[in-house]
């Protein structure tokens, strides 16, 4: 028993150590964002702030300059939401349907096609930048939010398909068979049988896609026009100053603000993670 308790303490020790490791950068960012510029310039970067100041946060949110607009991150936030939400939704739905087909409705060549989709996950985005720009121009959605949504959906499908397919292959074959005999068709089986089982994997897919899309900079900077720039581009504009003075506290505050939605998604979705997990995976 005692060796068991020891083991458990060891377990907790390891877990906590890792937690500290994971928290380190966030700690640095938070403390820095709460210091005055003066303190940053003179003090140690890793120490706790001597005097708390929330001014950098206010500035980052509503008055920091990104170009000639000095409205902070606020206006760009909305752009990101308009872009990320539909893109995440569409790519998750498409991925779920694709994964469902690959896992349960195999046909000749399906595996090859699946491999082709997977390989598509690896295409470096820098490669697609220029031809994509041309395509978007042809399609007339260059520099718009729909254009960005389109791009993110295209390059998100690979991952969402992968996630769903790998999840769905673990669902017993008999279940689909029973539903087929019950008279349910392709979509019926999907919505009535698979979707209710999918909560955990939807969570994974949404987390992944939302993170990728919200955090994306390359597509955002290349395919947005004035007025459709996502928050990452704005953040970059605030933080990056080639020859200007750097306000690290504002930079850090802005960074945390820009990352807040993804952090929030992780915290909230993490909760559904457990719920989904405990509800699902019962064998019938």
């Amino acid at each position, binding site marked *: 028993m005692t060796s068991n308790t020891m083991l458990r303490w060891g377990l907790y020790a390891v877990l906590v150590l890792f937690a500290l490791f994971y928290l380190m950068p966030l700690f640095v960012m938070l403390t820095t964002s709460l210091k005055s510029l003066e303190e940053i310039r003179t003090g140690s970067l*890793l120490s706790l702030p001597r005097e708390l100041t929330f001014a950098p946060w206010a500035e980052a949110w509503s008055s920091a300059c990104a170009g000639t607009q000095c409205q902070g991150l606020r206006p760009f936030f909305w752009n990101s939401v308009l872009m990320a939400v539909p893109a995440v939704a569409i790519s998750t739905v498409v991925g779920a*349907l694709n994964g469902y087909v690959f896992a349960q409705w195999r046909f000749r060549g399906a595996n090859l096609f699946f491999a082709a989709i997977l390989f598509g996950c690896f295409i470096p985005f*820098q490669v697609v930048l220029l031809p994509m720009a041309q395509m978007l121009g042809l399609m007339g959605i260059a520099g718009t939010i729909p254009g960005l949504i389109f791009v993110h959906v295209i390059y998100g499908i690979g991952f969402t398909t992968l996630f769903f397919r790998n*999840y769905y292959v673990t669902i017993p074959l008999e279940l689909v068979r029973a539903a087929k005999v019950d008279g349910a068709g392709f979509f019926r089986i999907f919505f009535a049988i698979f979707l209710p089982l999918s909560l*955990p994997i939807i969570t994974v897919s949404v987390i992944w896609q939302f993170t990728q899309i919200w955090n994306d900079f390359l597509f955002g900077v290349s395919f947005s026009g004035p007025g459709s720039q996502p928050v990452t581009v704005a953040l970059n504009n605030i933080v990056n100053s080639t020859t200007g003075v750097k306000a690290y506290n504002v930079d850090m505050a802005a960074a945390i603000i820009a*990352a807040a939605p993804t952090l929030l998604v992780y915290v909230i979705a993490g909760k559904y993670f457990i719920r989904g997990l405990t509800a699902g995976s019962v064998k019938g």
Partner: protein
Amino acid sequence: MEWLERNVPKLVLAPSFVAILVFVYGFIAWTAWISLTRSRLMPRYEFEGIGQYERLFAAPRWDVAMHNLFVFGGLFIVISMVIGLMLAIFLDQRIRAEGVLRTVYLYPMALSLIVTGTAWKWILNPGLGIQATVRGWGFENFTFDWLIRPEMAIYTIVLAAVWQASGFVMALFLAGLRSVDTEIIRAAQVDGIPTHRIYSAIIIPTMAPIFLSAFIVLAHLAIKAFDLVIALTNGGPGYATDLPATYMYAMAFSRGDLGQAAASAMVMMMVIFAIVVPYLYSELRPRRDQ
């Protein structure tokens, strides 16, 4: 009608099929063509030959980038998998604060390295970060200066990348662990199998598809590691931490040397192909058997 119904699955896949065909393979073909031209600032389509590839293989910086890709990719994937799996298994032991810990492990994936890059730079900088802090505690000989040593700097990239991705891998594995049929675990317990063997011999093998997901996610991150390098070292010291992705970006967008960038992209993709395809083949070939 009959036909329509029989082909619903294929019809569902059709849009994705077209999209992948055009926007992945079409673009790869485009890149292949560009790599055979003398495109500089903007694409040009006159055929030139394989000169770009000759230049590429002559460039010492490209050698470094490829070498780094293997070092970085290998270490990153292996370490992230190991840590992710370990944390998942540990968290699976009915841990009290599981919810909190899981969120803590997971959150780095939420943050782009554009966001955390500066913090990392400070932490890893010997004069500002860990080394300075630990020395400040009185351990004068403590050294942690990988960031500034050209031969070690690539490992700091590994460190930050592991920091970012291992939590997500943990989540994938945790989901996998929890979806294994409890009856089977019970059977193993009754069989008197010790816990570690239950994991190693029964649960983990049933999670093969999860490993596929994790591998793909990690390999994707490794190959595309771009933000990471830009934020942390910007390829430095010198170009010691250059990766093919940063090389390509530099060529395409800072140097105005599109042809060269395309050639490097093609080589990169061939390397990916060589690594990923056998893996995919072995994973996808066996028919489902549960």
